[in-house]
């Protein structure tokens, strides 16, 4: 880690001013990604602006039944907050299945939205990596890429997105609220996570100095029965091979009336399964239709010999999850 200067911001204005006024600076929240990557010399800001003191740890009701989550609320607190458990159990589960209790006590919700990939070629600080060093290439394309993405990839990057809770949030159509040097704005979550395309280094639309201050989760009645299931090699403390967030309502006729489906571990971004949703809504909730929907979602999957299993794995995981929710 290179020498850094440190500023502990006492207010949002101060924090935004400090970062936007310094070209080589970064916010420091829970630090669980930032400090790790600083030590690996993958990111190299020279000014760290500590935002842990900011009064952004709240959870409060919005609209009719939605929740606003302060950006500095810790994952462990959000996971166990009554209104999250009741209204979005799948989100609570996603939070609790992420990392470890120590990390969840540290990691903030805003920071989680900025979590970086675990791609070994990104993290090593040396290999060709378009995400770390634009234009240098992508060693993962032909490297060891078992954990890499099969959806949303490009010729320039196949790094998978590591977050669990972000999978829930894309399914819930959350909105990211920010304050930056140019004022406040709101960003729909699916516009927040940018697929790699030609610019893998640009992961979200935040301007320098723009701080996430809250995440709005709208009222989603169907999410009261939502679930998050995470499949991985070991039973705990591991990033997902494949994870599935689902919230589904089947009407009296046995047709899928509402469905929110999102996937982790398979996409370059937290993956909302729009195609599967479209394929199922209005159709009978049967295993055959679930399978067809899963096929549709992965129709454009791009795989390598090492991660091709994820397609089969994910399809089966989707079918199982929807079948269990139905039964």
């Amino acid at each position: 880690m290179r020498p850094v200067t440190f500023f502990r911001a006492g207010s949002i204005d101060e924090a935004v001013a400090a970062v936007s006024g310094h070209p080589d600076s970064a916010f420091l929240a829970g630090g669980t990604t930032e400090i790790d990557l600083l030590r690996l010399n993958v990111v190299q800001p020279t000014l760290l602006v500590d935002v842990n003191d900011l009064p952004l740890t709240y959870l409060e009701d919005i609209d009719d039944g939605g929740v606003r989550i302060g950006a500095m609320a810790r994952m462990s607190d959000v996971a166990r907050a009554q209104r999250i458990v009741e209204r979005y159990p799948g989100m609570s589960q996603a939070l609790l299945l992420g990392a470890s209790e120590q990390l969840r006590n540290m990691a903030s919700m805003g920071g989680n939205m900025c979590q970086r990939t675990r791609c070994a070629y990104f993290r090593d600080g040396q290999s060709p990596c378009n995400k770390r060093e634009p234009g240098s290439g992508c060693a993962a394309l032909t490297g060891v890429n078992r954990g890499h993405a099969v959806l949303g990839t490009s010729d320039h990057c196949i790094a998978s997105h590591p977050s669990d809770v972000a999978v829930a949030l894309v399914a819930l159509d959350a909105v990211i609220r920010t304050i930056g040097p140019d004022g406040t704005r709101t960003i729909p979550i699916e516009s927040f996570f940018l697929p790699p395309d030609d610019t893998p280094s640009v992961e979200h639309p935040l301007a320098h100095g723009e701080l996430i201050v809250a995440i709005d989760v709208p009222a989603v009645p169907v999410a009261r029965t939502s679930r998050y299931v995470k499949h991985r090699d070991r039973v705990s403390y591991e990033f997902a091979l494949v994870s599935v967030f689902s919230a589904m309502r089947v009407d009296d006729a046995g047709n899928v009336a509402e469905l929110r489906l999102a996937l982790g571990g398979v996409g370059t971004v937290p993956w909302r399964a729009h195609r599967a949703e479209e394929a199922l809504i209005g159709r009978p909730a049967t295993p055959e239709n679930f399978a067809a929907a899963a096929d549709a979602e992965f129709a454009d999957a791009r795989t390598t010999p090492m991660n091709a299993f994820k397609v089969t794995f994910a399809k089966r995981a989707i079918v199982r999850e929807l079948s269990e929710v139905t039964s």
Partner: protein
Amino acid sequence: MAINQSTAAAVTGVRGPQDVPVTLDVNGSTHAIELEPRVSLLDALREHLDLTGTKKGCDQGTCGACTVWMDGRRVLSCLTLAMSCEGHQIATIEGIAQDGRLHPMQQAFIDHDAFQCGYCTPGQIMSAIALIREGNATTDADIAEHMSGNICRCQAYPNIHAAIREVRDADDGG
């Protein structure tokens, strides 16, 4: 709301990059030391305060050996900057035994042979005590899941579980 340049210029109190005075509250004592901002809490404890009970296993947030409590909650000291801890109460393994008497969890670890090489042990104990306090030790599955941030390469896990169950079930609750 726009933040103009005069506000930005008004930001004062940037510290470092050289050594700066830092005050840390560790195990109930106040320590005034000089640190660079890039020093982690883990390295501040081990290299500056000579509190080497907190272990460095990976320095990457993947093993749990560096687990300490900040304001009573367990966190990883390797991914925490020492300067971020000013104004917070830090507790380490050295502060767990009181008046020369082992904490019941420490004694239970010895009695159940819940360690071999001992390197992950301080972190395991800091997590184990916190686990009960959190209410995450109710079932065997809870214990297993919520201790999973602490890796034991010697695989003393079954014995650690036994130690935790014993303390949980003791009258004083540890």
